[in-house]
């Protein structure tokens, strides 16, 4: 029964999503009721599985003695699973209103619901094979969402998306084979599964394989040089960019990297090696790179997309330090960034939805006309910048502290990157906020301020809720930190 509780939140939305595909709803209200109840029920399932079921390892399917599909909810799964299941409900509510202007909602919500299950599948996976499977599913399930608009731009984005993803998964597959050969099994065990006797003499090969897998999963985490798909995918409808490209998909990539480093190869094997230096430097470069490009993007959503690239590498950087403190800091930033970025995308979506404006210079002076939207943007933006005492500050502080504590000389490059990126973040965020509240001109052409007002409560309520969450977890991070520390040291 407990095993079933773990499987349910993964399977239920997939089945429900498939079932929704052929259904033609009579009207919007009916569909909203169905989709919302499925989402809420599944969130309850997920939270039950995470906090109460304690099912241990649940085997879904045996291929052979050493290959099987298993689900296992451990500490890391709990963190990721909780984050996803809470944000999913909020996004669904937001999507109801937003999607009214995108059309073909039946199809959209079917795939959207399916994706929920797949992401939880990634979170709950008990071994490398299962994670790999759900990881691939995630690409497929989200492709229709990315290509939703089905115009030239969307199709192009979709193609780029799938090429990159397949390429990444192929690289990750190499690691799967090698882990199978050189490990004691494929299960996720804190500290890694490599067998010392088998590894002896083959360290160099395995480090190359590790790098291949890192960059393979790094495709979803948008680590340089495989970031191109992400800004392109910002053509997708806002709920998709918000949830998938700030939370679910990209964080799955990060999650997989954490699994790879801490639970498959093990930090003992990797720490201090040249492979660690390579990934630290890759993360540091991506951090600065993302922020630099974000500053140059006049398109609001794309600016946030590049900001996501930068921030994902903060998390990767934390994980790449290969110390418990580094992982704690990385996970903290993962949670903060998820909440902050989803809010920022929502605000960009609210502007787009109400006014069809997409560029920075088109939203000057909107601050006062869309008070809730821009207040959310200001508060979460300030949090992203890392102005104390708001959220981003703690995670950046923790990251920098962990970097120094690790004693790795390469990590100092990362601290430098963090500081530069912090300045750039401040610039690219404040640029929007200052322009919105303090327009440069006194007069704007006629019709400029038409339709500029806050959207209805379907969109404002999620914004307000998320902003409150951001502020609260920013002001009181101690409990969160102590949980994450336990996760990062393998206690839960």
């Amino acid at each position, binding site marked *: 029964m407990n095993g079933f509780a773990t499987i349910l939140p993964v399977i239920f939305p997939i089945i429900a999503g498939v079932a929704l595909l052929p259904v033609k709803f009579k009207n919007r209200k009916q569909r909203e009721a169905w989709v919302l109840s499925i989402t809420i029920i599944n969130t309850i399932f997920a939270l039950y599985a995470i906090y109460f079921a304690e099912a241990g390892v649940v085997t879904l399917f045996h291929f052979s003695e050493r290959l099987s599909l298993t689900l296992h909810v451990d500490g890391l799964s709990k963190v990721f699973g909780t984050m996803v299941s809470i944000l999913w409900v909020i996004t669904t509510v937001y999507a109801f209103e937003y999607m009214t202007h995108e059309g073909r909602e039946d199809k959209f919500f079917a795939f959207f619901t399916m994706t929920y299950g797949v992401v939880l599948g990634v979170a709950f996976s008990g071994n490398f094979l299962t994670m790999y499977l759900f990881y691939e599913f995630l690409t497929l399930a989200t492709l229709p969402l990315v290509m939703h608009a089905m115009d*030239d731009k969307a*199709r*192009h984005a979709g*193609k780029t998306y799938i090429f990159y993803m397949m390429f990444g998964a192929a690289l990750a597959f190499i690691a799967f084979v090698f882990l199978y050969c050189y490990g004691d099994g494929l299960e996720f065990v804190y500290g890694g599964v490599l067998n010392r006797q088998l590894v002896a003499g083959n360290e160099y090969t395995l480090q190359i394989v590790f790098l291949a897998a890192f960059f393979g999963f790094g495709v979803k985490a948008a680590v*340089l*040089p*495989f*970031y*191109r798909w992400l800004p392109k995918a910002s053509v997708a409808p806002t709920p998709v960019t918000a949830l998938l490209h700030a939370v679910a998909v990209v964080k799955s990539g990060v999650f997989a990297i954490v699994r790879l480093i801490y639970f498959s190869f093990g930090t003992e094997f990797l720490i201090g090696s040249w492979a660690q230096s390579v990934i630290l430097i890759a993360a540091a*470069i991506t951090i*600065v*790179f993302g922020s*630099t*490009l974000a*500053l*140059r993007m006049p398109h609001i959503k794309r600016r946030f997309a590049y900001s996501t690239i930068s921030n994902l590498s903060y998390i990767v950087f934390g994980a790449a330090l290969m110390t418990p403190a580094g992982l704690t800091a990385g996970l903290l930033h993962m949670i903060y960034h998820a909440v902050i970025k989803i809010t920022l995308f929502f605000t960009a979506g609210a502007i787009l939805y109400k006014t069809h404006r997409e560029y920075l210079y088109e939203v000057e002076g909107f601050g006062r006309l869309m008070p809730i939207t821009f207040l959310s943007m200001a508060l979460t933006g*300030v949090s992203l*910048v890392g*102005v*104390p*005492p708001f959220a981003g*500050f*703690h995670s950046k*502080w*923790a990251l*920098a*502290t962990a970097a*120094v*504590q690790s004693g790795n000389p390469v990590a100092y490059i990362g*601290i430098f990157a963090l*500081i530069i990126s*912090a*300045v*750039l973040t*401040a*610039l690219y965020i*404040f640029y929007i906020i*200052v322009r919105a509240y*303090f327009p*440069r001109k006194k007069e704007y052409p006629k019709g400029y301020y038409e339709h500029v007002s806050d959207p209805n409560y379907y969109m404002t309520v999620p914004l307000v809720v998320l902003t409150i969450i951001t502020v609260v977890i*920013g*002001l*009181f*991070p*101690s409990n969160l*930190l102590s949980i994450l520390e336990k996760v990062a040291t393998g206690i839960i």
Partner: protein
Amino acid sequence: MEKNIVLPLLVFFPMVAAVLSYLIGRKNKEARNIWVSIVTFLVMIGTFMLVGKDASYSLPGFCSLGLSFEGDGLRVILAIVTSSIWFITTLFSKEYFTHFCNRNRYYFFMLMTLGATLGVFLSGDLYTTLIFFEIMSFTSFVLVIHEEKESTIRAAKSYLGVAIIGGLVTLMGLFLMYHMAGTLNIDALAEFMAAQEDKRAFYAVGVLILFGFAAKAGIFPLHTWLPESYPAAPAPATALLSCVLSKAGIFGVLVLSCKIFLHDANWGGFILFLGVITMVLGAVLAVFSVNLKRTLACSSMSQIGFIVVAIGMQGLLGSHNALAAGGTILHVINHSLLKLVLFLSAGVVYMNLQKLNLNEIRGWGKDKPLLKISFLMAVLGIGGIPFWNGYISKTMIHESIVEYIEILHEAGLATGYMQTVEWLFLFSGGLTLAYMTKIFVALFVEKNPYAEGNSKNIHEPYMSKLSAILLIVCAVILPVIGVVPHMTADKIADASYHFMGAHAPEHAVHFFAWINLKGAVISVVIGALVYFLFIRKVLMVKDHNGNLVYVDRWPVGLNLENKIYRPALLSWLPFIGAFFARLAASLTDGFISILRMLIFNDDTGRVVPPEDQYFSTYADSDDDEEVYGEGFAKSLLMIGIGLAVAMLYILF
């Protein structure tokens, strides 16, 4: 140390009250004004309640590292100055802002800034200091940008930029400090540093931490925002910026110099160097300025330089630093009080004329004795004339320099550079008098040859009774401190010695003995010379009607911000950044275009739907061979070859 709930209340109550004031303000403007006045009054009472109690309070876990507050001598004095000045400017704001928009926003951020500033002054560890310092920077930005004119927005953006960069550099320093010392508690840091033999590694960290605080205080070379932002903000906000917020920067410098680098001669010398440049440069800029508020802003910078010189002297003098320590705190307070009167007066001028250029406001105050006398009190005070408050603190700082020269002399060391410092000190004092005389004469003594528009409505009062009373009260305090320094100034200094690691001097300073008066006399002579020979001869020219007018002779090119900082931050660095970003991006693009060349086919002369460019091509001829050679099949062939090669590699 007793636990005292008043400390966190002082910080958080104004922040909560800010939200309330916004809500009240949406319904009723008058009620909001009253509410804001009550809040600032209560906060003022609260700070007075801390006197003599060595209070502390900590909130562990809040913002991960926890906050801690302390209320010892110096902190309480600074808090009292802050809250009193806030109360006075709030009362004054009511009249000043009558014709402004967005007053709700102003009051909201003003109260937020109050809480944050008190948080800085009452902080017990540097982490708390930084948190509130950052909040203060951001909330005060809204005060600076309040008028939303083009020049205001530009100035406010510089302000924000400096705040962000300064804050981050300081954060970096703190973070290194935390790593090295394992704590950020100010007293624990002092103990830790006292135990260190070799402090060289800490100097770099100290400079990093100093950066943000120095930027806020307006210390050279981070002063560039100051002469732009102060005049841009509304007068009550400028008063707050100059009287209080700059002191938050000074507080940071004090923590560094009196706790972390206590009695450290190297550090003291460095701070002294910065202080001297700031002091002289600010005074020179003020002499050249032709805008009332700009002159006062540059004057603020110069006076901050005096304070920093005193802090530097504390380090150089080591344990004999009572004079320098007393001079520091007294000049902090004196400057706050003086600038309050000056900026409020400037506010009265602007409120009536909407102008600040000396040529335009000339002679406006001729027939306004009340304003004239208040202003005169502040002029005499800031000029360091005996029997006014500025004289007391300047004398103490001057004495400390003289004392150090004697120490050097006894030790047989070269005294040349310290004598230069002494002369520069007296010279800046002279310039202070000169530029203050310039604006005083312009505003209150001279006749304006073009004064048609300015003298109308002569029968209406030019300020409300409330503002007049405030101005008088503030102006009267100045000579009172100056006349009876042993009853006022010495008490304040005594309370602060503990924080600054100093002991009360063995004998009381004879402020009105000839040896001390001599410095003032030299300054007055220099001031008179500069005023009559330079300002009246060089900085004023006859216009086409034969009237003397003020001209701005400061060379336009001589502007650090426009010539170096802005281009560096806005053009050079982004260019370099973008260049490398492009380079990094093209790595992927290059990789992909090679793959495309190998796998796909997009050559011309075929029917290619634009969106399907890279998926497939459709041959427009039925030449099988061509299609086979160029089309999708080629790709398959390539993959096949690749697989074969891989097979061969594995086999052999």
